[in-house]
């Protein structure tokens, strides 16, 4: 058995527990009297302690142990929940996270002992007079009680009922002859033990240091696979005395009980019947009681089994394997599209039928693979409550963060990227959006500021909204700054719409904060947010009303890899326009194009829509016979709220395309979002609507 194989499980599970702890602590702060939350925190701390102890991370175990003491006192109403207490517990959480990070990076917990936090924890305990004794008695030290080795124990511990075969008895006989002791050792693990097999591994190691193990019930392989309840029995021969074993085994955490009985040498029964001293008789006497117990155990087992079945439904998979799978599905779709477009094939009915079913299967396969890659936004959201809490405390503001739609799912690749932009926006809201308490009171608002973080699906997009009921964006101030920075002239500034003004916020190094704090004011922020979101094919919009608050709306695509696209011909070149940004397609005559200050526009249901001649923008070589076309095809695309008309030559049709990158050399070309391989094996470029429109 090797500990490294447990390390990954340990890391994953600790992560989950820490996340749960984070949430529970926040809840505890809100409802200090909620005993279920308190119990949950206690349970997590206890589990963490056990797991850390199992893995040999003693410093981590020590910290959680002290945490547990405090929580224990809390549970017994010896001390009460105070802000200071919660702060200390949060510090513990941070320290535990640091331990975990160090374990992830170096496989060791590091040297930091966080003596100050441990001191704080003890202060909390001692600050309360009287009942410290109870709190100081660590629960785990009380737990392992050394039991006298009584034969009766066998009835309580089913595995203690060891049947030795001839060979094993022989070994014992020999050992005893040589002056060694033979023991039957039953170890009972505490019920809360999480990594049973790892724990057993440590026990086995300890035993093997002092003795030779002859037999184990259940078998070692079964113990490795956690196929046992909470106890196992080994038969070992050793030169040491039983006291040493009791001492050593009890020093291992999560060992609830150790029962040792000596085995004596026994003449080998020729009938082959098993005989190991006293236990045989006891067996006969207590069969009835034992049967009862066994039944009980069986019941427990079935409960345990059904629990296992539920957890067994998930598999952790390396993201790279999913990417490989995704690539293969992509290739399959390309080939399918190619089959569909194939000419010169005898298109019999059976051919068409099997093509259709191929189409269905690939679509289902694609959906299935996509679903596998989907992760709820919760994984990003759940670190925000803590963050907002910390920032608002720093700033002395009272802020309530409401989150909804955490279950909304997004592609893994998107999830990994949106964390930072969202942190930026939340910080913005806390720092710039929500006013100081006195100002809020003056304007008749509740003292506590509200920030809403909302996620929901809208067609092929996922929308994430960050809104606050703060002071809103001061557009006049923004305008002033823009003029100061020389971005626009005074005259131009007066003609700007509110939306244009807000767009300045997304310009690099544009900050309206008058002084630099450690949160904001450096002007690095919204432009980074915008770049990041746009690199994910998403968009950011802002709605704001002075005095009432502002709302940032992030629109993200569900997936990045495969999209529906409209294929068009410009000159002789094929281009793909993501269908998600196509609003409609219209035919116009050349006379419909009007001019507004040299910009070509058309009127579409009373809206002025600028026309973009793609052949000019993309520098498509002009065709020789440029006859004046009577009909022009315009693809109306939307970029957020804004519409633009792309002038194209021919519409080819709608197709599922796989987005491929242009590679490192050509990345960063404006107006091209990537490339795709068409059914005929040729390459078509995907237009970046955001930068064209």
């Amino acid at each position: 058995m090797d500990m490294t194989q447990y390390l990954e499980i340990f890391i994953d599970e600790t992560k989950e527990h820490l996340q749960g702890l984070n949430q529970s602590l926040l809840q505890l702060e809100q409802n200090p009297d909620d005993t279920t939350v308190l119990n949950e925190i206690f349970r997590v701390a206890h589990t963490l302690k056990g797991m850390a102890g199992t893995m040999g991370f003693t410093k981590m175990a020590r910290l959680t142990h002290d945490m547990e003491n405090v929580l224990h006192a809390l549970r017994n109403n010896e001390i009460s929940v105070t802000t200071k207490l919660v702060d200390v517990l949060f510090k513990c959480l941070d320290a535990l996270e640091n331990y975990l990070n160090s374990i992830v990076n170096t496989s060791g917990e590091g040297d930091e002992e966080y003596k100050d936090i441990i001191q704080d924890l003890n202060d909390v305990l001692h600050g309360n007079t009287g009942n410290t004794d109870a709190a100081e008695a660590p629960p785990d030290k009380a737990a392992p009680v050394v039991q006298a080795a009584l034969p009766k124990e066998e009835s309580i511990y089913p595995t203690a009922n060891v049947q030795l075969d001839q060979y094993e008895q022989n070994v014992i006989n020999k050992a005893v002859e040589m002056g060694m002791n033979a023991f039957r050792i039953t170890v009972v693990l505490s019920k809360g033990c999480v990594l049973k097999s790892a724990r057993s591994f440590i026990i086995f190691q300890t035993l093997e240091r002092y003795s030779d193990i002859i037999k184990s019930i259940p078998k070692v392989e079964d113990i490795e696979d956690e196929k046992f309840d909470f106890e196992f029995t080994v038969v070992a021969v050793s030169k040491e005395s039983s006291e040493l074993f009791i001492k050593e085994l009890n020093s291992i955490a999560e060992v609830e009980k150790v029962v040792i009985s000596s085995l004596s040498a026994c003449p080998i029964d020729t009938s082959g019947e098993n005989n190991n001293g006293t236990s045989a008789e006891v067996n006969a006497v207590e069969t009835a009681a034992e049967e009862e117990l066994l039944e009980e155990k069986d019941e427990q087992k079935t409960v345990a089994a059904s629990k296992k079945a539920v957890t067994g439904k998930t598999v952790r998979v390396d993201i790279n394997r999913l990417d490989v799978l995704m690539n293969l599905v992509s290739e399959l779709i390309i080939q399918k599209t190619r089959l569909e477009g194939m000419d010169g094939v005898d298109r019999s009915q059976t051919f068409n039928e099997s093509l259709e079913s191929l189409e269905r299967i690939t679509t289902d396969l694609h959906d299935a693979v996509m679903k596998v890659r989907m992760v709820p936004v919760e994984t990003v959201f759940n670190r925000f409550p803590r963050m907002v809490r910390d920032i608002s405390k720093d700033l002395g503001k009272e802020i309530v963060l409401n989150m909804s739609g955490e279950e909304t799912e997004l592609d893994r690749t998107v999830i990994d990227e949106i964390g930072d932009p969202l942190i930026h926006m939340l910080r913005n809201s806390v720092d710039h959006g929500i006013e100081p308490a006195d100002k809020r009171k003056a304007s008749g608002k509740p003292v506590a500021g509200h920030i809403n973080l909302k996620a929901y699906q809208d067609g092929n997009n996922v929308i994430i909204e960050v809104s606050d009921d703060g002071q809103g964006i001061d557009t006049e101030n923004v305008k002033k700054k823009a003029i100061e920075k020389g971005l626009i002239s005074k005259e131009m500034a007066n003609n700007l719409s509110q939306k244009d003004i807000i767009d300045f916020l997304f310009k690099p190094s544009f900050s309206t904060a008058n002084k630099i704090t450690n949160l904001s004011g450096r002007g690095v922020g919204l432009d980074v947010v915008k770049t990041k979101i746009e690199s994910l094919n998403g968009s950011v919009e802002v709605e704001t009303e002075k005095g009432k608050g502002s709302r940032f709306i992030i629109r993200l695509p569900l997936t990045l890899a495969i999209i529906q696209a409209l294929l068009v011909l410009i000159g002789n070149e094929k281009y793909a326009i993501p269908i998600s940004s196509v609003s409609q397609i219209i035919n116009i005559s050349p006379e419909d194009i009007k001019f507004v200050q040299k910009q070509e526009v058309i009127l579409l249901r009373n809206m002025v829509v600028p026309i973009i001649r793609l052949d000019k923008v993309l520098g498509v070589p002009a065709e020789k016979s440029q006859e004046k076309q009577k009909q022009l095809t315009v693809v109306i695309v939307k970029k957020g709220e804004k519409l633009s008309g792309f002038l194209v030559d021919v519409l080819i049709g709608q197709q599922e395309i796989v987005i491929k990158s242009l590679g490192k050399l050509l990345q960063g070309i404006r107006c091209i979002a990537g490339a795709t391989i068409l059914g005929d094996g040729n390459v078509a470029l995907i237009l970046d609507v955001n930068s064209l429109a």
Partner: protein
Amino acid sequence: MELSSNTDVRQYVVFKLGQDEYGVDIQKVTTIEQVKPIARVPRTPDYIKGVLNLRGDIIPIMDLRKRFNLPVEPDTEDTRIIIIKIEEISIGIIVDSVAEVMNLTEADIENVTNFTTEFSLDYIMGVGKADGRIVTLLNMEKLIKLEDNL
């Protein structure tokens, strides 16, 4: 001297461009392909001819004639695309024809700065001499660096 230079034999893929012969380090060459349809990419330098699909990968293609300011000629039977991989970047270069693989020792290669100071072209690594022929050896890392005019 003889021995040590023998161990330093390097192989170069030799190709023709107009009348001149050029060589690239064989270690950097992935494959040599026949000409395939190439999709033009807008807003790139004119010597970037576009991208092509190489068994599912999108590979940018550079027209070496344009890069070296040679007159443009139509593709022939012999025109080839040499796919080169440098670190993570794959790129194809269009050449008139691929001639052979040549073995050159260090002694066969002459540093260009030795005979002219006019060369400001850092993408030329040196000149190889073998059997009375002269082969210009290209430094592909430098050659594929695009000016920042994207």
